[in-house]
C-alpha cells in the first residue's frame, strides 16, 4: 500500500525514493513531505529505514530511484557539505562531536559555511581573519548560551557528560542558523529533565524553523510533533497527527511486531 498524505508545497520532500544496499531493499517508494514551520516526526521500528531517509535527504546515500525536492526544486548531485549553505542542518545519531576540539570549537565548526577567510589569509593571520573569528565566536557563544552550555566552552567532549555533549552537538547544528533542522534521535541517551528541556526547545524553534526528527522515544514524538510519518520495512505505513497515528492499527501492528523481536 502506498500512503500519500495530501500536502501542498512541502518545504522538503522525498518523491518515490527507493534505496537498495547490498541486495536489500532499504527504502521502497518512500514519499515523505516536511511542511514548512512545523515539527514533523519520522518513526518506525528498528530497521525501518528512517536514518536512510535522512541520508538520502542529506546526500550521503544516492537513491536508486526517486528524487529529493527542497523549496520545490529537485536536488541533484548534492553533497552533504552543501546542506548548511542551503539552510539545512543535520545532527547525527549519538553525538558525533570532534574529540580533539573544544566544545566551543566544535560549535564554531558548524558555522563553516559562513566563514569567508581563505587559507592564504589565515596562513598570514590577516586582521580580518581575527575579526571574522570573533564574530563567529560570538554567534557560537550565543547559541551555546541558548542551550545552557556556554560554561563548557573550553572543555573537550570527553570531559562532558553525555546529555551535555548532545546539547553541544545541537548547538553545532544550530549555529549555521538553519531553516530546516534534521534531528537524528535527539532524545537518545538523555534523562527525563533534559527531555523536557528538549521538548521546550524544539517547540520554541517553530514556526521560524522547520524540524524533522527521527526518534524512538514515543512520548517526545507525541508531545512535540505536529505531523508524524511512520515507516516499516522501508515503506510508509501511516501518516497524520499524533492522535491519528496513535490509533492507527497498522502502526500498532508494526510496533507490536517490533516488541516481539
Amino acid at each position, binding site marked *: 500500500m502506498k500512503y500519500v498524505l495530501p500536502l501542498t508545497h512541502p518545504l522538503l520532500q522525498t518523491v518515490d525514493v527507493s534505496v537498495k*544496499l547490498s541486495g536489500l531493499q532499504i527504502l521502497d517508494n518512500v514519499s515523505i513531505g516536511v511542511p514548512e514551520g512545523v515539527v514533523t516526526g519520522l518513526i518506525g521500528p528498528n530497521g525501518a529505514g528512517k536514518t536512510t531517509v535522512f*541520508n538520502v535527504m542529506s546526500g550521503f*546515500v544516492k537513491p536508486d530511484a526517486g528524487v529529493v525536492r527542497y523549496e520545490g526544486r529537485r536536488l541533484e548531485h548534492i553533497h552533504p557539505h552543501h546542506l548548511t549553505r542551503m539552510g539545512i542542518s543535520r545532527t547525527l545519531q549519538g553525538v558525533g562531536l570532534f574529540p580533539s576540539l573544544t566544545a566551543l570549537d566544535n560549535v564554531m565548526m558548524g558555522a563553516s559555511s559562513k566563514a569567508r577567510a581563505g587559507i592564504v589569509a589565515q596562513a598570514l593571520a590577516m586582521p580580518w581573519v581575527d575579526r571574522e573569528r570573533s564574530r563567529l565566536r560570538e554567534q557560537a557563544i550565543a547559541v551555546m548560551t541558548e542551550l545552557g552550555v556556554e560554561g563548557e566552552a573550553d572543555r573537550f567532549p570527553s570531559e562532558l557528560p553525555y546529555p551535555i555533549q548532545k546539547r553541544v552537538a545541537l548547538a553545532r547544528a544550530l549555529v549555521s542558523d538553519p531553516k530546516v533542522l534534521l534531528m537524528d534521535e535527539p532524545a537518545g541517551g538523555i534523562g527525563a529533565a533534559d527531555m523536557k528541556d528538549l521538548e521546550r526547545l524544539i517547540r520554541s524553534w517553530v514556526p521560524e524553523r522547520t524540524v524533522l526528527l527521527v526518534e524512538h522515544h514515543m512520548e517526545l514524538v507525541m508531545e512535540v510533533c505536529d505531523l508524524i510519518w511512520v515507516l516499516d520495512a522501508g515503506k510508509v505505513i501511516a501518516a497524520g497527527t499524533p492522535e491519528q497515528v496513535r490509533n492507527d492499527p497498522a502502526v500498532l501492528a508494526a510496533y507490536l511486531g517490533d516488541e516481539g523481536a
Partner: protein
Amino acid sequence: MTTFIDYLLGGVSSGAIIALMALAIVLIWRSTRVVNFAQVGQAMFTTYVALTVRDATGNWIIALLAAIAAGAVLGLVVHWLVIRPVKRVDTSGAIIATFGVLISLQALAGMLWGGDTRGYAPPVSNDGIQLAGRIWPFSWYDVLVIGVTIALVIGLTLLFTRTNIGLAMRASAFNPEVARLSGVRVSRSLAYGWILAGMVGAIAGVLVAPTSQVSPNSFDILLVFAFTAAVIGGLDSLVGAVTFGIGTGLVISLVSGYSDSSNAPVVALVLLALNLLLKPDGVFGHHHSRAV
C-alpha cells in the same frame, strides 16, 4: 616478436616473487586489517639468516628452512609485540609502527651483517636454458622459483579450504564476532596469519636473493611492487595478489626491456595511482560502504 616473448619470459619469475610478497601482505591484511610495510624488512632479515646458515652448512634447502622458521618467529613477534597492542589506538599508529619495525630491522641487519651488498648463489643454474638452437631468457632457477610459487599457492589454497585452521582463519578475518561466538580462537587465528605471512615472505626473500643480491635496503623496491600488486588485486584477495603479482612482474620486465629498468618504479607508481583513482577497492576487492 621474439624480443617481446623474451621480455615476457624474463618477467615470469620476478612476477612470481612479487606475487609471493603480495601474498604475504594480503595474508596480514586479511587477518588484522593492517598493511605490513615491514614485510620486506622481515624478508630481508630472514634472508640474512639464510645466508648465514648457508655459509655454515653450504646447503640451500637447510638455509631456506632456517629462513622460513625465522620468518615464522619474526611474524609472531611483530604481531604480538607491536601490532596487537597498537591496533585499537589509531589506524595511523599501526601504519607508522610497521615503518618503525622496517627501520629497526634494516638497522639491526646493518649492525649484524654490515651494509655491504652480498651475493646469494642460486642452487641451480641461473643461466638461460639452451633449447631449439637458441638461448632462452629463462633459467632452471626460474623454473625452481615458479615451481615453488605454484606449490605454495596450492598449499595455501588447500590450507584455507580443507583444514580447520584455515577455515578458522577465514572466519576470523571475515567476521571476528561471529567467529568468536562459534568457538574460534580469533586472536590465535590472527597470529597464524602473521606467522604464515612471515613464512611466505621469507621464501620470497630467499628466492629473490640471487637476482637482487642482499643488503639491508635491497628489497625496498620489492615492497613497492608487492604493495602495487596487492592493492590492484584488492588487498583482500589471494587470487588477486598472485594474478597481479605476476602481472606486475611482466609489465616491469616489458618496460625495462623496451625502455630502461630505472622506469620500473615510476611505472609501478603509475599503475598504482591509476588503480586507486579508478577503482579504489582494487579489482578483486569488495566494496564496503561506510555507515553514517
